[in-house]
């Protein structure tokens, strides 16, 4: 049978199952489904079919029909939450699902801009976020979203936090400042080369004046535009009565600048504009990198609360009404459908089913709850419609509590004091004091104001924060760079230093040490097993176990799987799936399902640490699969290596004792705590911190977020939830566990280099400052030694880049 691409989504299928459409002249078009056909017809009739030429070889997802009712988008509560009004027009931010290529962006923008009433559409390709401005009286929000859906995409709103906008604005501003700084510094450098050269070979004073003036013109914006952050920082520091690095940079750079202006005008000394520009720009580059990764606390809150439903189904007698969650009371009877989230804590009063509790406990294994059991807000019903009685109102429900706990703990994140900052504080004070002493000494001793000023300034210029100021930023920049090569992202440079000082490592189990996805570990087949049938059956279910089996089937029977459509597929509450195929009855699920359907077992199959999945055809067992959550690659070796580094390792999990024990044993962790709720994990961390421990926490799920925000350094595995990634300080990309070891290794190394750099600059200063104070330093020598000292720091820091990699295996 020949393969052919669907003319809309470009996915490849067997020609036999494609829909043939002859309505476009002689050459027939083929579609994989009605959805694709519908979109194709629509685009053709709107004259937008140039989309297909634009999209090239990209494939799309076929549009799905089943969507929740778009009517909810017109509810007042919804509009007041997401829509912003400005001069009579409404503005909303949407996330558009299904954008694959720039042609998709083009198509969406085009279709929306054609609609009456929509006046502005900007879609960001990189993050699929769209800003739409429209007139509420001409077109409704639901119509806009329907339009997007009609062409095969889906859209849902998101709350653009002001915080995010502000963070972006700051980032832009810093980028502009950095550009100015780099531009001016680069230009000053080549002018400076001419000046140094002229110092040796001689240069006419008039030409020198011009070079000085050019440097002055270039250095001025660097100091006052790029360097404005230091002045602000210094102002705040002095106002709050402490001396910071900013004070030193600001005073050093502006004094050197003032001296250079004086030298330029008086024509009897060397100018230091190049040092001014260098110091400001280099230290600024470090600051810019920090701003780039700055955390967005409000963003986290947004992604958290956006998973919270706005409305709940309230059951009143025989009636069901949708009410806003805020208006729920204790003892209300509520209904939750499959796939929906429980909104308030409650007790089940009818039906039974499996719940996905991963938001709270992080466990992938769904738990079974029946009448009389307590369920918590944040649970998601997987397979059945249940009614439950509210035991709390919305604001006191577990999930809301976690959200509010999180928002408070986010502001109180512990920070270890930075070594460079503390030292530089004292250092700046000492240098400024010495400069003042020098000035007074020379003024009294020799009575010359000018000479005293030049010497005093040369003390500051010599001691200028170059080496000390660069000690930390250069080392961390190199450290961050080499971390990125290993797939580790440090959101702020300072976390490298903080991490090196931590002594306790806390690991979450599910999704961190293990993969969080159950995989098939053993399988057993009996007569009559048909892979295609099983695959078709499990592909119909979204249950993690079914997904695990489906994945296993694809990996092992890919060639044998044929496309089969089953009849009357139904998922049996909390037990499995059932379907019919040509009269045969297919059953897939747990032991309970098999027993209740009278499936004959030829031998007993029991397993303690694995979840079993049975597959039966016509009440005859044909296959058994054992599934287990597997360890991440290299978990054991990495933990071994981390232990050798001297870290205390603790595992925290929401899972039950024997699973926790099993995993802890496998990876060699001695201390572990089990059956913990998110708040318990956070409390555990608080307790450790009270004992004086400094903690690195590694987690991945929403359930870890609270604990992550409590620890000194929070690390998220990259495959984790957005919330965890947002709240954490370090993100480890990919699935490799080795990266965790590398992150520690790099941070320790950076910390050592920083100490070396600081030690060097302290030694340098203790030798050079006395010399400068007694007026022995010639202008050229001052400039050269300063450059040399920075060079030593930079070269020393470069050594971080050459880390050896951990031996794998």
């Amino acid at each position, binding site marked *: 049978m020949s393969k052919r691409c669907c003319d809309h989504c470009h996915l490849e299928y067997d020609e036999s199952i494609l829909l043939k459409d002859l309505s476009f002249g002689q050459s027939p078009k083929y579609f994989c489904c009605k959805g694709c056909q519908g979109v194709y017809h629509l685009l053709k009739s709107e004259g937008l079919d140039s989309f297909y030429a634009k999209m090239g070889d990209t494939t799309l997802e076929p549009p799905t029909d089943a969507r929740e009712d778009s009517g909810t988008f017109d509810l007042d509560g919804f509009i007041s939450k997401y829509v912003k*009004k400005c001069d*009579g*027009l409404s503005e909303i931010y949407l996330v558009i699902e299904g954008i694959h290529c720039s042609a998709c962006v083009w198509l969406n923008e*085009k279709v929306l801009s054609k609609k009456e009433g929509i006046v*502005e*559409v900007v879609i960001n390709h*990189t993050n699929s976020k769209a800003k739409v401005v429209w007139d509420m009286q001409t077109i409704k929000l639901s119509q806009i979203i329907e339009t997007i859906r009609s062409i095969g995409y889906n859209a849902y709103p998101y709350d653009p936090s002001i915080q995010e906008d502000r963070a972006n604005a700051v980032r*832009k501003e810093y980028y*502009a400042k950095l550009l100015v700084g780099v*531009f001016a510094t680069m230009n000053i450098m080549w002018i400076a080369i001419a000046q140094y050269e002229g110092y040796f070979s001689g240069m006419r004073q008039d030409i020198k004046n011009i070079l000085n003036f050019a440097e002055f013109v270039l250095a001025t914006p660097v100091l006052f535009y790029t360097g404005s952050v230091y002045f602000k920082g210094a102002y705040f520091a002095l106002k709050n009565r402490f001396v910071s690095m900013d004070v030193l940079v600001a005073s050093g750079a502006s004094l050197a600048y003032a001296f250079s202006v004086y030298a330029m005008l008086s024509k009897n000394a060397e100018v230091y504009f190049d040092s001014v520009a260098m110091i400001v720009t280099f230290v600024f580059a470090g600051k810019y990198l920090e701003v780039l990764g700055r955390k967005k606390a409000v963003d986290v809150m947004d992604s958290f609360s956006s998973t919270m439903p706005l409305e709940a189904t309230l059951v009143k007698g025989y009636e069901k009404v949708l009410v806003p969650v805020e208006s729920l009371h204790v003892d209300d009877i509520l209904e939750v459908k499959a796939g929906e989230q429980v909104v308030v804590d409650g007790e089940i009063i009818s039906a039974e089913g499996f719940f996905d509790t991963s938001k709270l406990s992080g466990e992938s294994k769904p738990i079974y709850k029946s009448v009389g059991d307590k369920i918590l807000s944040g649970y998601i019903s997987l397979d059945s419609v249940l009614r439950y009685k509210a035991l709390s109102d919305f604001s006191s429900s577990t999930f809301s509590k976690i959200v509010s706990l999180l928002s408070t703990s986010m502001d109180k994140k512990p920070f270890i004091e930075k070594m460079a900052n503390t030292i530089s504080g004292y250092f700046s004070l000492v240098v400024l004091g010495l400069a003042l002493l020098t000035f007074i000494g020379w003024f009294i001793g020799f009575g010359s104001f000018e000479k005293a000023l030049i010497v005093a300034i040369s003390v500051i210029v010599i001691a200028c924060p170059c080496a000390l100021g660069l000690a930390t930023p250069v080392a961390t920049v190199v450290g961050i760079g080499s971390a990125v090569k290993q797939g580790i992202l440090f959101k702020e440079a300072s976390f490298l230093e903080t991490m090196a000082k931590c002594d306790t490592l806390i690991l979450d189990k599910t999704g961190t040490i293990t993969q969080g996805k159950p995989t098939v570990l053993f399988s057993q087949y009996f007569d009559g097993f048909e892979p295609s049938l099983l695959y078709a059956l499990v592909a119909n279910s979204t249950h993690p176990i079914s997904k695990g089996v489906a994945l296993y089937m694809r990996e092992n029977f890919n060639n044998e799987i044929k496309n089969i459509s089953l009849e009357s597929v139904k998922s049996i509450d909390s037990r499995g799936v059932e379907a019919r195929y040509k009269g045969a009855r297919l059953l897939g699920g747990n032991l309970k399902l098999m027993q209740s359907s009278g499936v004959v077992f030829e031998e007993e199959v029991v397993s303690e640490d694995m979840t079993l999945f049975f597959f039966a055809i016509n009440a005859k067992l044909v296959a058994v699969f054992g599934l287990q959550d597997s360890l991440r690659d290299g978990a054991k070796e990495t933990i071994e290596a981390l232990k050798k580094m001297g870290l205390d390792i603790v595992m925290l999990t929401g899972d039950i004792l024997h699973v926790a024990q099993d995993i802890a044993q496998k990876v060699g962790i001695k201390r572990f705590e089990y059956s913990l709720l998110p708040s318990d994990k956070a409390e555990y961390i608080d307790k450790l911190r009270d004992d004086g421990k400094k903690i690195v926490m590694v987690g991945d799920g929403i359930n870890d977020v609270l604990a992550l925000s409590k620890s000194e350094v929070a690390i998220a595995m990259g495959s984790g939830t957005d919330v965890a990634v947002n709240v954490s300080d370090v993100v480890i990309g990919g699935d490799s566990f080795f990266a965790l070891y590398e992150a520690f290794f790099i941070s320790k190394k950076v910390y050592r280099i920083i100490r070396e750099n600081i030690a060097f600059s302290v030694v340098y200063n203790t030798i050079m400052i006395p010399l400068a104070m007694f007026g022995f330093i010639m202008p050229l020598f001052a400039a050269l030694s300063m450059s040399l000292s920075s060079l030593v720091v930079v070269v020393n820091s470069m050594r971080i880049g050459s880390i050896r990699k951990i031996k794998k295996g």
Partner: protein
Amino acid sequence: MDVWVVAMMLGVSILLGALGLVGLLWGLKNGQFDDREKFLNGTSFDSEEALNDAISMEKKKDKILEEKRKTGYRPPD
């Protein structure tokens, strides 16, 4: 070498560089680099049609605002 030659060369080259910098900063402020992908792919979809669309959209906005002013519409807040 004449002082003025040096001055002019320095001045002109710094000025030219500064012009480029100002252009870059202007683009940055305008949000032209906010979306990297779109920026890179922008050339393939840039056409007269796109320009017309942008203009018609602006006209649509003006018209709606104009009507609102005429009918004495006040935003509810």
